[in-house]
Protein backbone atom coordinates (compact mmCIF):
# COMPACT_ATOMS: atom_id res chain seq x y z
CA UNK A 1 0.00 0.00 0.00
CA UNK A 2 1.30 3.45 -0.90
CA UNK A 3 1.96 5.59 2.15
CA UNK A 4 3.50 8.84 3.30
CA UNK A 5 4.58 9.25 6.91
CA UNK A 6 5.46 12.57 8.50
CA UNK A 7 7.22 13.23 11.76
CA UNK A 8 6.91 14.69 14.23
CA UNK A 9 3.13 15.04 14.26
CA UNK A 10 3.44 18.26 16.22
CA UNK A 11 6.17 20.61 17.26
CA UNK A 12 6.29 23.64 19.53
CA UNK A 13 9.21 26.04 19.22
CA UNK A 14 10.11 29.63 20.01
CA UNK A 15 10.70 32.38 17.52
CA UNK A 16 14.20 32.20 16.12
CA UNK A 17 14.52 28.42 16.45
CA UNK A 18 15.35 26.21 13.48
CA UNK A 19 13.10 23.26 12.78
CA UNK A 20 13.40 20.17 10.63
CA UNK A 21 10.29 18.34 9.46
CA UNK A 22 10.53 14.82 8.11
CA UNK A 23 8.66 12.94 5.43
CA UNK A 24 9.24 9.32 4.45
CA UNK A 25 7.37 7.50 1.73
CA UNK A 26 6.72 4.13 0.20
CA UNK A 27 5.05 4.38 -3.18
CA UNK A 28 5.27 2.54 -6.45
CA UNK A 29 6.60 4.50 -9.45
CA UNK A 30 7.59 7.59 -7.51
CA UNK A 31 7.50 10.77 -9.54
CA UNK A 32 7.78 13.75 -7.18
CA UNK A 33 7.41 14.93 -3.61
CA UNK A 34 5.66 18.16 -2.71
CA UNK A 35 5.51 20.25 0.43
CA UNK A 36 2.50 22.38 1.27
CA UNK A 37 1.71 24.77 4.11
CA UNK A 38 -1.84 24.64 5.45
CA UNK A 39 -2.91 27.47 7.68
CA UNK A 40 -6.64 27.88 7.97
CA UNK A 41 -7.88 26.28 4.81
CA UNK A 42 -6.18 25.61 1.49
CA UNK A 43 -2.79 23.91 1.26
CA UNK A 44 -0.37 26.46 -0.17
CA UNK A 45 2.35 25.10 -2.44
CA UNK A 46 5.93 25.40 -1.16
CA UNK A 47 8.23 23.06 -3.08
CA UNK A 48 8.24 20.24 -5.58
CA UNK A 49 11.21 17.88 -5.54
CA UNK A 50 11.99 15.33 -8.20
CA UNK A 51 15.75 14.79 -7.97
CA UNK A 52 17.86 13.56 -5.10
CA UNK A 53 20.34 15.85 -3.40
CA UNK A 54 19.25 19.11 -4.98
CA UNK A 55 18.17 21.60 -2.35
CA UNK A 56 15.25 23.86 -3.08
CA UNK A 57 15.24 27.12 -1.20
CA UNK A 58 12.77 29.92 -0.67
CA UNK A 59 13.73 32.50 1.92
CA UNK A 60 14.05 30.78 5.27
CA UNK A 61 12.60 27.52 3.97
CA UNK A 62 14.56 24.81 2.25
CA UNK A 63 13.94 21.21 1.32
CA UNK A 64 15.86 18.25 -0.02
CA UNK A 65 14.95 14.80 -1.27
CA UNK A 66 16.76 11.49 -0.84
CA UNK A 67 15.34 9.00 -3.35
CA UNK A 68 17.60 6.21 -2.17
CA UNK A 69 16.45 6.39 1.45
CA UNK A 70 12.93 7.50 0.43
CA UNK A 71 12.61 10.63 2.52
CA UNK A 72 12.61 14.37 2.41
CA UNK A 73 13.18 17.09 4.98
CA UNK A 74 11.82 20.59 5.20
CA UNK A 75 13.94 23.06 7.15
CA UNK A 76 12.76 26.38 8.48
CA UNK A 77 15.40 28.66 9.94
CA UNK A 78 14.81 31.65 12.24
CA UNK A 79 11.18 30.69 12.72
CA UNK A 80 8.51 33.36 13.09
CA UNK A 81 5.00 33.19 14.51
CA UNK A 82 3.71 33.40 10.95
CA UNK A 83 5.29 30.01 10.26
CA UNK A 84 2.72 28.40 12.57
CA UNK A 85 0.74 26.01 10.38
CA UNK A 86 0.33 22.39 9.41
CA UNK A 87 3.02 21.35 6.93
CA UNK A 88 1.90 18.67 4.53
CA UNK A 89 4.06 16.32 2.53
CA UNK A 90 2.55 14.69 -0.56
CA UNK A 91 3.89 12.27 -3.11
CA UNK A 92 2.93 11.67 -6.72
CA UNK A 93 3.41 8.59 -8.83
CA UNK A 94 3.67 7.93 -12.53
CA UNK A 95 0.09 7.14 -13.42
CA UNK A 96 -0.72 8.13 -16.95
CA UNK A 97 -0.15 11.80 -17.69
CA UNK A 98 -1.53 13.19 -14.47
CA UNK A 99 -0.72 13.18 -10.78
CA UNK A 100 -2.79 12.27 -7.81
CA UNK A 101 -1.33 13.40 -4.54
CA UNK A 102 -0.98 11.03 -1.62
CA UNK A 103 -0.71 13.09 1.52
CA UNK A 104 0.86 12.47 4.87
CA UNK A 105 -0.94 13.38 8.07
CA UNK A 106 1.01 16.61 8.42
CA UNK A 107 3.23 18.18 11.05
CA UNK A 108 1.54 20.85 13.16
CA UNK A 109 4.10 23.56 13.93
CA UNK A 110 3.43 26.14 16.61
CA UNK A 111 5.91 29.01 16.91
CA UNK A 112 5.60 30.95 20.14
CA UNK A 113 6.91 34.51 20.57
Amino acid sequence: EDKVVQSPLSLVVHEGDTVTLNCSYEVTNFRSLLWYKQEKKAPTFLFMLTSSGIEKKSGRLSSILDKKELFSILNITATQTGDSAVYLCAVTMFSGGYNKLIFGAGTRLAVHP
Partner: protein
Amino acid sequence: EPEVTQTPSHQVTQMGQEVILRCVPISNHLYFYWYRQILGQKVEFLVSFYNNEISEKSEIFDDQFSVERPDGSNFTLKIRSTKLEDSAMYFCASSWQGSYEQYFGPGTRLTVT
Protein backbone atom coordinates in the same frame (compact mmCIF):
# COMPACT_ATOMS: atom_id res chain seq x y z
CA GLU B 1 -1.49 36.18 -8.94
CA PRO B 2 -3.94 33.66 -10.42
CA GLU B 3 -5.69 31.43 -7.92
CA VAL B 4 -8.22 28.65 -7.70
CA THR B 5 -11.57 29.81 -6.34
CA GLN B 6 -14.37 27.75 -4.84
CA THR B 7 -17.99 28.43 -3.94
CA PRO B 8 -19.70 28.26 -1.58
CA SER B 9 -17.25 28.49 1.30
CA HIS B 10 -19.68 26.62 3.54
CA GLN B 11 -22.66 24.46 2.60
CA VAL B 12 -25.08 22.91 5.04
CA THR B 13 -27.44 20.30 3.69
CA GLN B 14 -29.72 17.57 4.93
CA MET B 15 -28.95 13.90 4.47
CA GLY B 16 -30.23 12.64 1.14
CA GLN B 17 -30.06 16.01 -0.59
CA GLU B 18 -27.99 16.74 -3.66
CA VAL B 19 -25.17 19.27 -3.49
CA ILE B 20 -23.01 20.85 -6.16
CA LEU B 21 -19.65 22.28 -5.21
CA ARG B 22 -18.15 24.72 -7.66
CA CYS B 23 -14.58 25.52 -8.58
CA VAL B 24 -12.92 27.88 -11.01
CA PRO B 25 -9.42 26.54 -11.73
CA ILE B 26 -6.51 28.71 -12.79
CA SER B 27 -7.30 29.78 -16.34
CA ASN B 28 -4.53 28.12 -18.34
CA HIS B 29 -4.50 24.90 -16.32
CA LEU B 30 -5.53 21.68 -18.00
CA TYR B 31 -5.71 19.15 -15.16
CA PHE B 32 -8.29 19.34 -12.41
CA TYR B 33 -8.70 17.48 -9.16
CA TRP B 34 -10.98 17.12 -6.17
CA TYR B 35 -9.73 16.18 -2.72
CA ARG B 36 -11.47 16.00 0.60
CA GLN B 37 -10.34 16.34 4.19
CA ILE B 38 -12.51 15.00 6.98
CA LEU B 39 -11.92 16.98 10.15
CA GLY B 40 -8.71 15.87 11.82
CA GLN B 41 -7.77 13.46 9.03
CA LYS B 42 -5.51 13.42 5.99
CA VAL B 43 -6.26 15.09 2.71
CA GLU B 44 -7.59 12.34 0.41
CA PHE B 45 -7.67 12.17 -3.38
CA LEU B 46 -11.11 11.83 -4.94
CA VAL B 47 -10.81 12.29 -8.68
CA SER B 48 -8.68 13.72 -11.46
CA PHE B 49 -10.08 15.17 -14.69
CA TYR B 50 -8.45 15.96 -18.00
CA ASN B 51 -9.70 16.59 -21.50
CA ASN B 52 -13.31 16.44 -20.35
CA GLU B 53 -13.10 13.05 -18.80
CA ILE B 54 -12.16 11.38 -15.55
CA SER B 55 -8.54 10.21 -15.54
CA GLU B 56 -8.62 8.40 -12.23
CA LYS B 57 -10.90 8.09 -9.24
CA SER B 58 -10.45 6.72 -5.77
CA GLU B 59 -12.63 4.14 -4.06
CA ILE B 60 -14.29 7.02 -2.20
CA PHE B 61 -15.61 8.37 -5.51
CA ASP B 62 -18.57 6.03 -5.89
CA ASP B 63 -21.73 6.36 -7.98
CA GLN B 64 -23.02 9.13 -5.73
CA PHE B 65 -20.26 11.42 -6.98
CA SER B 66 -19.85 13.00 -10.38
CA VAL B 67 -17.73 15.76 -11.88
CA GLU B 68 -18.34 18.06 -14.78
CA ARG B 69 -16.78 20.93 -16.62
CA PRO B 70 -19.95 22.59 -17.89
CA ASP B 71 -18.18 25.50 -19.58
CA GLY B 72 -14.67 26.79 -20.17
CA SER B 73 -14.11 27.94 -16.61
CA ASN B 74 -16.10 25.99 -14.03
CA PHE B 75 -15.38 22.56 -12.62
CA THR B 76 -18.05 21.02 -10.41
CA LEU B 77 -18.38 18.15 -7.97
CA LYS B 78 -21.89 16.78 -7.44
CA ILE B 79 -22.94 14.51 -4.63
CA ARG B 80 -26.34 13.06 -5.49
CA SER B 81 -27.60 11.87 -2.15
CA THR B 82 -25.47 13.14 0.70
CA LYS B 83 -24.66 11.02 3.73
CA LEU B 84 -23.49 12.12 7.15
CA GLU B 85 -20.03 10.78 6.39
CA ASP B 86 -19.71 13.12 3.42
CA SER B 87 -19.22 15.98 5.87
CA ALA B 88 -15.72 17.27 5.12
CA MET B 89 -13.73 20.08 3.55
CA TYR B 90 -13.65 19.63 -0.21
CA PHE B 91 -10.69 21.09 -2.07
CA CYS B 92 -10.42 21.69 -5.76
CA ALA B 93 -6.95 21.79 -7.30
CA SER B 94 -5.53 22.41 -10.75
CA SER B 95 -2.22 22.07 -12.53
CA TRP B 96 -0.96 23.21 -15.91
CA GLN B 97 0.41 19.83 -16.85
CA GLY B 98 -0.15 16.51 -15.15
CA SER B 99 3.39 16.43 -13.83
CA TYR B 100 3.36 19.97 -12.50
CA GLU B 101 2.54 21.18 -9.01
CA GLN B 102 -1.11 21.43 -8.04
CA TYR B 103 -2.61 24.62 -6.70
CA PHE B 104 -5.47 24.34 -4.24
CA GLY B 105 -8.58 26.42 -3.77
CA PRO B 106 -9.74 27.62 -0.34
CA GLY B 107 -12.16 24.72 0.03
CA THR B 108 -15.86 24.24 0.64
CA ARG B 109 -16.85 23.01 4.05
CA LEU B 110 -19.76 20.63 3.58
CA THR B 111 -21.87 19.83 6.63
CA VAL B 112 -24.49 17.11 6.26
CA THR B 113 -27.09 17.01 9.02
